């Protein structure tokens, strides 16, 4: 049975239900908490660390997307410390791979690019990693550019939880982590892929795109994935 709760977000008392996360409560009440790996309709994994918030009485920061709302919880969504940590997280994402926005199909429609702008990231203070990464063009309709992947795993979850195919996974560890289709088979040869394209629409950057688009032309239809879940009553 869902219980009614009261939580405080940035000082304002807000009604919530048990089972909701801090991020869900905040979004339902027009309180902005940035997030990259969170997507409405998919399970939350707390991977990107952009939705970290301060909770009074808790010494460490908590990810809003995986922390359940509790009676009397008091949350701060923005502070100089949080802004500074979010900037660091964003800069490290840029430093890790080759996000060359100027020649990206998703430029102008990219969540990473927009978050960087919103957080005043005018440059990256860390040395770039410049890894040599593959671009998988083996699929007939879609392309996967590892240079632009932030490992948010939204594609993994969209494919596993909504399409039910589970083509995608993240292989290896740490800086070597890579998105793989099936057991590292090229995407075009993945037998479980239904070519539905939900992974592409769920991808926040230009890492996954439809073929045939030029720079700034790929606009994702995120709502496709979120709507499917709500049509199924959240299952």
């Amino acid at each position, binding site marked *: 049975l869902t219980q009614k709760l009261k939580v405080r977000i940035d000082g304002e008392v807000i009604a919530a239900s048990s089972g909701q996360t801090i991020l869900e409560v905040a979004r339902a009440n027009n309180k902005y908490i940035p997030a990259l790996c969170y997507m409405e309709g998919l399970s939350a994994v707390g991977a990107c660390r952009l939705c970290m918030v301060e909770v009074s009485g808790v010494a460490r920061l908590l990810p809003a997307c995986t922390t359940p709302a509790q009676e009397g919880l008091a949350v701060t969504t923005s502070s100089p410390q949080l802004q500074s940590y979010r900037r660091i997280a964003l800069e490290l994402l840029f430093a890790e791979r080759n*996000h060359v*926005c*100027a020649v990206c199909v998703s430029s102008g429609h990219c969540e990473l690019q927009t978050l960087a*702008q919103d957080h005043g990231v*005018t440059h990256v203070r860390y040395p*770039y990693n*410049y890894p040599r990464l593959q671009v998988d063009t083996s699929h007939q309709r879609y392309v996967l550019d590892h240079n632009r992947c932030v490992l948010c795993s939204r594609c993994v979850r969209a494919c596993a939880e909504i399409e039910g195919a589970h083509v995608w996974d993240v292989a290896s560890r740490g800086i070597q982590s890579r998105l793989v289709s099936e057991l590292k088979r090229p995407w075009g040869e993945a037998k479980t892929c239904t070519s539905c394209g939900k992974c592409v629409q769920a991808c926040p950057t230009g890492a996954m795109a439809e073929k045939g688009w030029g720079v*700034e032309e790929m606009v994702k239809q995120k709502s496709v994935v979120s709507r499917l879940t709500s049509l199924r009553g959240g299952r």
Partner: protein
Amino acid sequence: MDKLKLGTCWLDGCSGCHMSLLDIDEGIVALLKKADIVFGPLVDAQRYPEGVDVALVEGAVSSQDDLKLAQTVRARSKVVVALGDCAVTSNVPSMRNGIPTRKLLERIYVEGASEKPGVPVDGVPPLLRQAVPLHEVVKVDLHVPGCPPKPNAILLVLSELLEGRKPDLGTKLRFG
């Protein structure tokens, strides 16, 4: 009052940032009342002069010559601005960074050449191992991202800097 000195330079970039600078149109008239352009692709000077007030640097640092010029600009300028994504992030020039320079040059000038194959050595500066953002080799006072930065952003930056203020770019600019 003496006029201020504005220097611009073009490292490893496409000159698009300089085009965007010219796209401030009549805005340049007001700027040139306050400052003279004393160096860069828009003027004839061969040497980067001393005592420059504001320097705009376009392009990534990609060759020995880029590095030398970046250091000279830093030493002789009060305010150094990284103008555009190449100077700010190393951008497109960095797409070669995963490839060893010798392999890169051979791929283009030997394997890719239809006639007279051979890596050029005379009159061209040696490449650095990687193309890097300006702030990795010298101190940068202001970053202006964009590919290219919008003319009105450049105009705002120059107008403010020539008035001795640091422009507040806030969340106006993005990469790409």
